[in-house]
């Protein structure tokens, strides 16, 4: 063992490697991405790792590997589990041979997601056991125990860290590489009565799952991850039940004080009922401090009902804890102070003279080719009646002023089919769907087939920057690279679109504004489903060449560049445009927009 300063996600990866994982598949998504990247960086040669095209593919790859007796792991964010839910729901019935852990990172807030869904609730729904770590060290230990449990019971097991555990750092003790468990998988053993799902098998297995989960609840009641402290004493009348990162907020709020009885739940499903009974013994009232769903709260209410206990369970359902949003040290401290009848130290302490602060939402980078693509479509369509359906990725930021080019965004790949739905209601509207290259492979292709075959009329704009930019530049089938380090023929987006049957598929460099605008005008008027591939590399990966400069004597101060492009490298000083040379990448878009030719010197990547 040795000590390392690790991010929670890195700890999960190293824990999985120490537990002998041999196949890891996932799809990038904040806050989960670094788990798989850390596996790829640290793995031994016999471990296979891939960024799958989406979470469903990842779940199935990992399931196949576990069928063959290998230990496997899936990594995704909470909304990724929605994509993978079809295989997971059935896999819960079929089971696995090798241990299989599904790492699902939840995002309270949400900070970088569409929803605030709680994977603890999902685990109840799919009947799969779940571990809920409260720290980096616990995440490292839990992932190893999850593999053991999965293999012993023959079921996939979920590990659901939240953002503050995923992206928190701590120095923890980890196994040396030479002590990592190595396993030789037995291989797939044919047995269609086991591996082929049919209603009769599902009926039998459902009954087995319910029995297993009941006995697992007893086992979990003895687990170190579900603890009651201090030991029950007759004098205690109130208690606090908590979990995950909120546990640490509770501890910091009770800092240095003798505190009420605590129940920390690390395995919320199957719920450790016996441990909960031990906790509830003699209490009058309990405050449940949870983030996202009131999972423990509902379980405690059920335990009280089942055993006829008269303990008042408070939390989200009673309005004592906020029903949504991320918990903070303050929100938890306040809830505890109120529960314990302490004065609120924060009263009357708010400064009132704070100056106005600029708002700073995330923006497309200086030189980002997506800005040029959106701008070209905007220019080309002018005042025509249009709808711009966006998708998930950096280019969702095209919604911001002054571009204002994203009218809808729902979930991965939805832009194309949402545009189709709008077209069927408003056939006179020019419908556009913007989709990134990685999202196109993840779930855009099926949408294009659907729209094409069902006779829609819309323009698919593939914003191809040849990477998965938002999550940190992961490879995908369009990049010609894999996580195993292979360099191979990329899957051509243009060839895929043509194979579907699209007659018009044009590729254009968005940084060549005039040509891009002409292309959009021409293609948008074609009938049916047609596509434009805006191809230009992500500026974060490319090395900037010469930057653009404003000739102040030629700048007439119309500020068209500033007002129309919203580039973070463009500023106004003394009524004229100026360019921050530290940010400019020389994309030349502003040079092409300037009506007086006052900007020059940029060199496109």
């Amino acid at each position: 063992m040795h000590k390392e300063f690790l991010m929670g996600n890195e700890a999960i990866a190293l824990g999985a490697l120490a537990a002998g994982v041999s196949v890891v598949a996932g799809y990038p998504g904040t806050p989960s991405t670094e788990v798989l990247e850390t596996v790829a960086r640290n793995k031994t040669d016999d471990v296979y790792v891939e960024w799958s095209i989406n979470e469903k593919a990842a779940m199935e790859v990992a399931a196949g590997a576990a069928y063959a007796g290998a230990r496997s792991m899936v990594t995704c964010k909470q909304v990724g589990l929605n994509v993978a839910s079809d295989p997971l729901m059935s896999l819960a019935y079929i089971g696995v041979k090798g241990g299989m852990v599904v790492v699902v990172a939840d995002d309270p807030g949400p900070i970088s997601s569409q929803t605030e869904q709680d994977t603890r609730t999902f685990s109840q729904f799919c009947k799969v056991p779940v571990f809920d770590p409260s720290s980096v060290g616990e995440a490292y230990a839990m992932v190893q125990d999850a593999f053991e449990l999965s293999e012993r019971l023959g079921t996939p097991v979920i590990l659901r860290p939240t953002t503050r555990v995923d992206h928190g750092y701590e120095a923890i003790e980890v196994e040396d590489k030479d002590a990592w468990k190595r396993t030789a998988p037995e291989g797939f053993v044919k047995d269609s009565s086991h591996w082929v799902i049919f209603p009769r098998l599902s009926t039998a297995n459902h009954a087995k799952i319910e029995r297993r989960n009941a006995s697992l609840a007893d086992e979990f009641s003895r687990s170190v991850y579900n603890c009651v402290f201090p030991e029950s004493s007759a004098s205690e009348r109130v208690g606090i039940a908590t979990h995950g990162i909120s546990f640490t907020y509770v501890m910091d709020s009770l800092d240095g004080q003798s505190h009420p009885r605590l129940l920390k739940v690390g395995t919320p499903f199957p719920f450790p009922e016996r441990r909960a009974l031990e906790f509830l013994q003699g209490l009058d009232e309990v405050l449940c401090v949870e983030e996202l769903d009131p999972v423990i709260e509902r379980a405690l209410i059920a335990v009280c009902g089942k055993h006829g206990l008269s303990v008042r369970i408070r939390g989200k359902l009673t309005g004592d804890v906020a029903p949504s949003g991320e918990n903070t040290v303050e929100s938890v401290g306040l809830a505890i102070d109120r529960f314990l009848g302490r004065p609120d130290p924060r009263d009357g302490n708010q400064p009132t003279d704070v100056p106005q602060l600029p708002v700073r939402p995330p923006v497309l980078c200086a030189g980002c080719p997506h800005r040029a693509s959106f701008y070209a479509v905007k220019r080309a369509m002018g005042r025509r009646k249009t709808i711009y359906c966006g998708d998930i990725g950096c280019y969702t930021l095209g919604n911001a002023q002054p571009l204002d080019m994203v009218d809808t965004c729902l979930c991965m790949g939805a832009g194309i089919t949402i545009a189709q739905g709008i077209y069927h209601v408003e056939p006179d509207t020019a419908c556009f769907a913007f989709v990134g290259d990685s999202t196109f492979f993840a779930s855009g292709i099926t949408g294009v087939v659907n729209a094409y075959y069902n006779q829609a009329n819309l323009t698919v704009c593939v914003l191809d920057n040849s990477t998965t930019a938002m999550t940190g530049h992961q490879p995908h089938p369009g990049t010609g690279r894999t996580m195993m380090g292979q360099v191979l023929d990329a899957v051509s987006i243009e060839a895929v679109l043509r194979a579907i049957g699209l007659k018009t598929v044009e590729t254009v460099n968005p940084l060549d504004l005039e040509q891009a605008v002409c292309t959009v005008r021409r293609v948008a008027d074609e009938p049916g489903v047609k596509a434009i591939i805006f191809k230009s590399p992500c500026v974060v990966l490319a090395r900037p060449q010469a930057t653009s400069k404003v000739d102040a004597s030629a700048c007439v101060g119309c500020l068209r560049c500033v007002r129309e492009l919203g580039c973070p490298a463009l500023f106004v000083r003394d009524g004229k445009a100026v360019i921050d040379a530290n940010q400019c990448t020389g994309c030349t878009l502003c040079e092409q927009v300037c009506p007086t030719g006052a900007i020059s010197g940029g060199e496109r990547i």
Partner: protein
Amino acid sequence: MRDDIILCGVGGQGTVLASKLLAAAAMERGLPVKTAETIGMAQRGGSVFSHVRLGEGSSSPLIGKGRADLIIAFEPAEAVRQLGYLRNGGTVVVSQGAIVPVSATIGGPAYDLDAIMGYLRARVSNLVVVDAAAAASELGSAKCLNVVLLGAASRSGALSLGEDDLEVAVRRLVPERFLELNLRALRFA
């Protein structure tokens, strides 16, 4: 000892490396460390922060409001945004180089640097202002602002780590070709 430190700035300014340097320096001294980072969409020019907790006795990676001993701000408006975390008598080390967001140039809330610096001066008794532009021109690069600020923080007395502790961390984490620049940045006063 226990230092609760908040680093804040704008995505892309190097707050994450600064928090790693603090953590590495503290670990070198045998101190327990916890940090929390902003990662993801906000890194695209949004407001970012890191919480760094050095020393015994903390459970959470996040610091509560009114409990930070030190705020190291890479940008003045971001210092004001995080000021609620500072404890009474705490220290703020701030770069006075403003980063004006796109929103302020196209009709969103304006950026009034004088009002923001005035507020910091009135509110924070232990305020250290770092002239980022002067540092960049003297050092020949704006890319080491994070290390300039860490150096200023260690000299302010509000940090239990000295320049020598930080130098060990810089030597360990900064790539060879930027090492000399960052060592000068650390001692830049």
